[in-house]
């Protein structure tokens, strides 16, 4: 029933800790104009706009899409605003894809962004409510115990996280828009960086970034007119949610993630994901989440995800490169981060990833998660229609 849909334009801003040279408007337009240019399209070619970002309290504007939409040429058009916590960038791309897959629209522009420098993410993420006591120190304080739980279960070597961080930081050097670039990065530099939320070290943590990502998703006809780069055909999309906390919830290996990837592979006709997927961009805000998600994505058996990192399978020259762009560890404009994963997956199968291109990538996974490891959104894109 669903129509074919493909990514026909991609634009990312330059990411930085503080993009003080632009307004929120300028930030999203930078991404959108780059996507339009990539797709060789004009504003008037766009049928609808889907905007995504994480909590409004980051920028202190309630439902900011209302003032931003017209900066995306949206007057007289439909506009949706998605918010599914940290997975929002991915979910936003999926909603945009569904507007095309449903046959409703031919070309949809989707933009997700965060301008974190306007406030303080740690503040916005741990607003103290009356009667309660804030004990969880931001996202790191929440996720560090889960990492410790993973270490206890898997018996993974303690330097696994350092190895992930080193790989991603080296990959980021090949990505022109990445935020945090450490040209002299070494294993020792990461190992000696301060412990923030034990076992998470400073250099095993994502930065706080300003930035935006835009995609243009088109139907078959639009994809066939795609000139600058071949289209990235969307083979399957999937979102799954489970509650934040419930008795005996497995927070380390959440069922929603296991179910999400299993459903995704089924839709995409993939039976052996480790073998059939050429590369993946996975939402890894703290280094240890790479091995955890390798298991959650059914790339490795339970307890064995760390071996992929350790044996170099996830490196650029490994059998399943992960986070070729440098990933969330190097660039994290929260609301955009999920869409950047989806965009980077599409760039790989379009062959436009430049220095971090995986030769011959035909099938790629984009992955995002959010909340207390409870919201998942994923897609598979390919160089040919499914």
């Amino acid at each position, binding site marked *: *029933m*669903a129509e074919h849909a493909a990514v026909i334009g991609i634009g990312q801003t330059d990411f930085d800790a503080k993009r003080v040279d632009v*307004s*929120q408007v300028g930030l999203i337009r930078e991404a959108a104009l780059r996507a339009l240019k990539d797709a060789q399209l004009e504003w008037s070619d766009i049928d609808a706009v889907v905007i995504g970002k994480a*909590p*409004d*309290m980051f*920028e*202190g*504007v*309630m*439902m*900011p*899409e*209302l*003032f931003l*939409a*017209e900066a995306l040429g*949206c*007057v*007289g*058009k*439909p*506009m*949706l*605003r*998605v*918010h*599914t*916590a940290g997975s929002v960038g991915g*979910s936003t791309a999926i*909603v945009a894809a*569904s*507007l095309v*897959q*449903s*046959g*409703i629209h031919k070309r949809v522009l989707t933009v997700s962004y965060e301008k974190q420098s306007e406030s303080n993410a740690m503040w*916005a*993420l741990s*607003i103290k*409510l009356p009667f309660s006591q804030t004990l969880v120190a931001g996202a790191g304080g929440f996720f560090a115990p889960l990492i410790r739980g993973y270490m206890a279960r898997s018996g993974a070597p303690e330097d696994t996280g350092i190895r992930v961080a080193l790989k991603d930081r080296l990959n980021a050097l090949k990505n022109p828009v990445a935020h945090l670039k450490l040209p002299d990065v070494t294993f020792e530099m990461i190992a000696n960086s301060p412990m923030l939320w034990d076992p998470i070290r400073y250099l095993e943590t994502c930065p706080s970034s300003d930035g935006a990502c835009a995609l243009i998703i088109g139907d078959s006809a639009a994809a066939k007119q795609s000139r600058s780069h071949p289209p990235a055909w969307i083979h399957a999309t*999937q*979102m*799954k*949610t*489970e*509650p*934040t906390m*419930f008795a005996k919830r497995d927070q380390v290996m*959440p*069922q*929603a993630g296991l*179910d*999400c990837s299993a459903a995704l592979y089924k839709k995409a006709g993939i039976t052996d994901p480790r073998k059939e997927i050429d590369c993946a961009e996975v939402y890894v805000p703290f280094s240890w989440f790479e091995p955890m998600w390798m298991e959650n994505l059914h790339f490795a058996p339970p307890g064995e995800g760390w071996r992929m990192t350790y044996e170099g399978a996830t490196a650029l020259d490994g059998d399943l490169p992960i986070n070729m762009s440098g990933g969330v560890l190097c660039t994290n404009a929260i609301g955009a981060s999920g869409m950047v994963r989806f965009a980077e997956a599409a760039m790989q199968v379009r062959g436009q990833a430049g220095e971090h291109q995986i030769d011959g990538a035909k099938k790629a996974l984009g992955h995002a998660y959010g*909340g*207390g490891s*409870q*919201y998942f959104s994923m897609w598979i894109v390919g160089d040919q229609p499914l």
Partner: protein
Amino acid sequence: MRDVAIVSYAQSPSVRTQQDENEVEMLMPLIKEAVEGSGIAKQDIGFTCSGSTDYLSGQSFAFVMAVDAVGAWPPINESHVEMDGAWALYEAWIKIQCGEADSALIFSFGRSSMGETAETLGLQLDPYTLAPLKADAISLAALQARAGLDAGKWTEREMAEIAVRCRAQAKDNPDAQLSGDFETDQLLADPYLVSPLRKHDCPPVSDGAAVMVIAAEEVARKGPNPPVWIRGLEHRLDSHQPGGRDLTLSPSTSLAAQAAGVADGPIDFAELHAPFTHQEVILREALGLGPDVLINPSGGPLSGNPIMVAGLARLGESARRLWAGHGKRAVAHATSGPCLQQNLVCVLEGE
């Protein structure tokens, strides 16, 4: 296009303050009622989508906790829009059109009583040139009302008559917050709140929640309620700057109405998300509804206006009325943003 219908609906009464229950406690019985009323087993519902905004309750990720009310286990296919529930319905409808689901649960919630709603809504304004002036939602609506008075599009008496009619119609709605018999002259004798708006021109501050189940034809036909068909569902947006457009018109509503096929058949009644009296006149014109069309038989937002819920409630109230056999074809409308900036139009048909 797949034929999709509303198969069940549940809402809380609109009340000034629902302090006893948090969002989860409010939603839980409504979700149970709507799911049971749909005739679809909870685990068979293919998609869930909610609409809410963090700024109403002053906490990031307010919607995350609301998932607790659903019983999202085993994990569910789910999404959330930072928009009125009517747009959550749109996303769910799209998922059904894609063939990704055959049914969907939609819910929205808002406890406006926790804050000062008119000021909170002022946080929606352009943060550079508008928000620093601290214009509140009532003042902006008053600018719109004045523009129409100056243009001769409505009078203060006509505005008061709309309030009188809505409050009288709300007498039959047990969920209404504000209802009863009022005299136009008596209302016009009241002082201005923000001139030219009097209190009766503005919506009450309301807490509430609403839950709806929709389904594709093959599923919808099996339910206990006769399907209320979604024949057209479209939404459009206007410019944000209030000084950049003619506030007495709603071109986005007209575009959405045209695309949704409002004019393709006679309309028996309309549920319009017009929180301010004069906005009913703007919407009636933009939707092309003649003087014979009954507007807001439920009492509309002037009788109960839970923010983020009131739009979805227009669809829900329309479905209830069609189930009760009062008419065959209806228009439901939802709005968002200052001065009717964004508008959704839905054409509904009973069996």
